[in-house]
């Protein structure tokens, strides 16, 4: 088993933290995992990307070229990274952030109104965790226990809010076929 996950968006959305949560959860499940990132010098607003490679073998090359799973949280990132998903790979995105989401190719698409759901839960800061709930629901890769354990370990504050966000993501994600 080997999977490359690319999470992208803009600074301040918790993109890198999301990658850390996924990678750590994979380790909790007994896999090897490598998480890398790239971001602009600004702390907020610049484009941000986090990549996680998960494997049951030793991971040589730590980067994701064509992602098995793309989790996308901004229009700019969608234009840049959606097409860099593998054939039959999964693209999970927030349609309210990405109104222009037409894409050609052999992909499985999943929509989740993460930012709205997060706002309804009280703060849009947790939109990334809603996305991770959707990811966990759609992709049979990492156990739910490992994901929640990793969320607990990575964000000890406001645990209930984050776990609610995670559950909401699992519940509300929609697979669409265009």
């Amino acid at each position, binding site marked *: 088993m080997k999977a490359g996950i690319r999470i992208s968006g803009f600074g301040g959305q918790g993109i890198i933290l999301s990658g850390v949560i996924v990678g750590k959860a994979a380790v*909790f499940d007994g896999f090897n995992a*490598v998480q890398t990132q790239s971001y602009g010098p600004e702390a907020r607003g610049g484009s941000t990307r986090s990549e996680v490679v998960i494997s049951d073998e030793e991971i*040589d090359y730590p980067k994701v070229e064509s992602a098995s799973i793309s989790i996308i949280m901004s229009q700019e990132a969608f234009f840049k990274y959606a097409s860099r998903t593998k054939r039959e790979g999964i693209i999970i995105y927030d349609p309210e952030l990405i109104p222009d989401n037409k894409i050609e190719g052999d992909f499985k698409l999943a929509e989740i109104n993460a930012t709205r759901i997060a706002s309804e839960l009280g703060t849009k800061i947790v939109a990334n965790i809603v996305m991770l709930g959707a990811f966990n629901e759609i992709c049979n890769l990492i156990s739910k226990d490992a994901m929640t354990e990793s969320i607990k370990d990575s964000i000890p504050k406001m645990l209930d809010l984050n776990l609610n966000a995670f559950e909401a993501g699992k519940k509300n994600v929609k697979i669409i076929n265009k």
Partner: protein
Amino acid sequence: MTNDVIRLLGRKDLFIQGDDAAVYGALIADCRFFAGYPITPATEVAEGMALWMPKLGGVYVQMEDEIASIAAVIGASCTGVKSMTATSGPGFSLMQECIGYACMAEIPCVIVNVQRGGPSTGQPTEAAQGDVMQAMWGTHGDHQIIALAPKSVQETLDLTIEAFNLSEDYRVPVILLLDAEIGHMREKVVLPEVVNVKVDERVPATIGPDKYRPYRTGFTRTSKVPEFAPFGSGYRTYVTGLTHDKRGFPVTTSADVHEELVRRLIEKVQDDMDVIWYHEDLFLDDAEIIVISYGTTSRPAVSAVKMARKSGIKVGHIRLITIWPFHYEKMKELLKNAHTIIVPEMNLGQMVHPIRETVGKDIKVISAPKIGGAIHTPYEILKCIEEE
């Protein structure tokens, strides 16, 4: 002490950055003094030390610049405390004079250099391997340092411990060459079992203060390394960066004293090459093409070599873990059956030079450079292999 640290760190399987792994390695190696100055992408090492040192009875101090940082590290080490600093390119350049001092006065210290794109301020957040030559030759005069280059977060932890051991054993500065990629990469790390951790200490003085000569040799397990009496132990040691005799007193115009000292500083390390020099090799038995890499670049290199093997190309891989000193003899032996050597590096060709020097004109040596921040992809290296 090591025991306490491993217990304090808690869960054994961690998912941490390379910079954090350097911190944990240092804690396990009993490092109890850290002086540093913030610089991307090494700042997390300082942050980790600021968090941990006070909890372990150690000292963390943020100095006014990198020169002061390494200076304080050397001062602290003179009292017998294992000491470390961490920096990146611009700060590493500033530290060079003090690194030479540590070589000359034989003061153990560990310098973590999380390499970024240079020259000058360059690319603060991007990875590079541009300080390879500087690590060896950045300070003036003939000398020998030790430099290690880990390829993963786990190895960063393991080699930080080893860096302290080598530094204490040989009383020489040891440079841990990371890069922005490994420094900020998170990966699974398993903390070592306490029983498996080897932590070396400087050899203490084996003679009373009245007869003690700080730079006499022949009384430690590595015969050209002097024994050590820390400041405050009553031995009253004089330490200087000037050329000195066995008493440690300046003797600056005698060719004999100078040559004996400087040769010893180099030989004490090089005589033990077989112990100090770590490498890994893969598929060398029938390899006609050999890829040589170190640090992060080894990861796409190994991927590329495995891919090429699948398509029947007789290619092997050597990973340099100890990158300085360079083991010419051993490398010559390992490379003797190859017809081509490929050296991918995240610089425009640095380690390729001693490799060329090793094989002379007998074997074709190809430099496969890449700069700008991205690490080589396996396909880029595979293409070089396929072209040969």
